[in-house]
C-alpha cells in the first residue's frame, strides 16, 4: 500500500518516486498546495476505487497517513 501511494504522489506532483518517502507531506513537496491536494485526492479515489469524506480529505497530509487511512478503508487492496 505504501508503495502504491508513494508512486501516486510522485505522479501527481511530477517527481521521481525516489524523492517520495513515507514522511513526504505538503511541507516537503512544494507543489502540494491546496489545489493540487484535490488532484491527489481524485487520483487516490480513482486508483483505489473509494471516496473520501471531507473530514478524511483534511487528514490526508502525508504519504504515511494516506496509506494508513487507505488500509482501513480498502483493506482488501492492502493485501494485494
Amino acid at each position, binding site marked *: 500500500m505504501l508503495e502504491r501511494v508513494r508512486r501516486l504522489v510522485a505522479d501527481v506532483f511530477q517527481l521521481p518516486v525516489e524523492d517520495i518517502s513515507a514522511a513526504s507531506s505538503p511541507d516537503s513537496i512544494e507543489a502540494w498546495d491546496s*489545489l493540487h491536494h484535490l488532484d491527489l485526492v*481524485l*487520483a487516490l479515489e480513482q*486508483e483505489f476505487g473509494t471516496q473520501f469524506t*471531507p473530514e478524511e480529505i483534511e487528514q490526508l497530509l502525508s504519504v504515511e497517513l494516506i496509506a494508513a487511512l487507505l488500509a482501513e478503508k480498502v483493506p482488501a487492496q492492502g493485501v494485494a
Partner: protein
Amino acid sequence: MSKTDISALRAEIDQALAQEDWYAARSGLERLSNVERSSAAASFAVARYERMRPHLALTSCRLAILRSFTVEPLVPLLRARAFAGGLDVEVHVGGFDNYAQQMLDADSELYRFRPDVVILAIETRAVLPGIWEDFTGLDGGRALEAANEFLDSLSNWVRVFRSQSEARLLLHTLEMPAVASAGILDAQTGEGQARVIEELNRGLRKLAAEATGVYVVDYDALVARHGRERWHDERKWLTMRMPIAADCLPALAEEWLRFLHPLMGRIAKVLVTDLDNTLWGGVLGEDGVSGLQLGREYPGAAYLALQRTLVDLYRRGIVLAIASKNNEAEALAAIETHPAMLVAKRRFAAWQIHWDSKVESLRRIAAELNVGLDSLVFLDDNPAEREAVRLALPEVTVLDLPADPMQYASVVRACPLFERLTQSAEDRARGEYYQQQKERRAAQSGHASLEDFYYSLAQKVEIRRVSTSAELARVAQLIGKTNQFNLTTRRHTAVEVAAYADAADWDVYSTEVSDRFGDNGIVGVAMVRRGERAGQRVAEIDTFLLSCRVIGRTVEDAMLHVLIEDCRRQGIERMVGWFVPTAKNKPAEKFYARHGFHELEQTEAGTLWALDLDGRMIACPAWIELRALAGAGVEEVAHA
C-alpha cells in the same frame, strides 16, 4: 493489463527516456494511456512528454479556461491526451466565477495570456442557481425571464470578447438536473425546468451561430451520455466546488480535445483501412466472398457498424483509402459484389492491394493523394502491422483496435483527428473529386503517350446551336465566369446571348462533353458573326471558350473543326478572330497560331488572326467521337 504489467510499462517508458529512445517512450505512453485513464497516469505522462518536447513535432495551443467550478484536476488529463495527439497545450485557468470580469476587462489576465482558444466552462447550478435549485419557487414566466436575462448578459460578454480577442470561444451548454424540482410534474407542463433549460441552450446555440469563431460544447449531452447520476459528485461539489465525479473527468477532457484538434488544424484528412478482419470479418483469400462476416446479424453487424462510421466520415469530407494484403482483383470484386457492403468502391480515393508492406502502401497512398504522412490515420486489426507502421512512419496516426470488433466503430468515432467544426459543400464532395482524379490519372499513367491517354478517355463531344432556355442559361453562365481558355473574354449578358442566338447573321454554339468517367455537361461556347469585308464573306469568332474542367483534352480542336465546316457550308471564305490577352487566359494564347491562322492586325487590345478557308481543313481529333449540329445537314462525324 494488471497493476504489475502497468508498473513494468512505466519502468519501460522511463528507461526509453533515459536512453533517449523517443519512439519507444512515445509508444509506451500511448499504450499506457489506453490502459490507464487515471489522473495519476496523466500526470506521469505529462511529466514525460515535457521532457521529450523538443523531439516531438508538436503544435502549441494556448488555452484559457473560464469557469464556475474546479477544473484544475482536468488539466493534466487534457494535456496528456493532447500531447499524444501532437498538441502542446498551455493552460491558463481563470478565477472562480470571474468569467464576466475577465471577458469585459480589456486588461484582464485572460487577454494578457493571449489565448488561442477560450472555454467558458460554466454550470447551471452556479450561473442560474434559481433555476437549478429553486425552480418551484419561480413561476414559469419568471424562470424564462431569468433565462433571457442570462442570455442577454452572455451575448454582451461574447460581443466584448470578440472585440478584444481573436481567440476561438467555446461555450458550454447548460446541464439539466437529474431529477426536476417538480418531479414528474415538470414534464406535464409547458414551462417546466427542463423546458426552460432547453430554451437557454437553444438561445446559446443561436448566439454562437451568429457570432464568428464561437462554438458550442454540448456539455448537457456529454453529461447525459455518461449518466447524470454518475457524472455528479455532490460531496465534492459542496466541499471543493468540484461537481464532476473523478471517473468522469477524462470524458470532459476528451470532449474539449475534440474541439482543439480542428481549431488548431491538427486533423487527419485520410483514413486508410485494412480489409480482412477490419472492414469485414474473415479472410477473403480463405473464406471467399460468401464466407465473409458482414451484415445486420452478429457477428457481421460489428463490421457493418464500422462501415457506417466510414461512410459518415466520408460525408464529413474525410478521404477513404485501402491498404490490404490481398489479390487486388479479388478484393475489389468483393467490395463491388458483397450484398451488405456499405462503403462502395467509388468512395475509396486510393487503394494499395497487394503483398508489399503496409508501410510502402501508406507511403504510396500519401503520394498519390498528394498529402503528408501526418494526414493519414491507419486502421488495421493486426497489431504487428500497426507496430510496423508506427516504427517506420511515426508521422502516421495508428488507431489501436481492441480485440472485440463490436468496438471498432466507437474507436474510430472517438478519434478527435476526424472532428470538424465547419463543413462546406466542397468537403462533402471531396471524396468524389479525389475518386475522379484517381481514375483520370490512372488512365493517364496507364498509357505510354498522350494520344493513348486521349483515346482512353473515350470523349464524346456534342456541338449544337443553342436553342433551349436551359442551354442559354448555362452558356451565359460560362461566358460570365470562364477566364482561362477564353479567347476574347467578352462578358455578354444572358439577354444579349439570347438575342444573338436568334439573329440571322450570328451562330451561338454550345459544346457538351462526356467521357468514360461521366458527363461533364456543357463546357464550351462559341459565337460567330457572319458578314462582308472587302468583298469577301468573312466570319468573325466573337467568343470561343472552354471550361477549365476540359482544358488540355483537345475539345477546342473539335469545336474549331465544327465552326469552320459550318461556316464553309454557309459560303464563308475567311475566318477571323481576336485574341484579347488578360491576366488569366494564357492557356488560350497559342490557339490560333497552332491552327495555321496568320496575324492580320495587332492593337493594344490584342491580335486579330485570320484563316482563309480555300480548301483548308481543321481536322477533328481522331480520338473524339463527335456529334455536331445534328439535323442541320452539316455533317455527323463519328470517329471510332
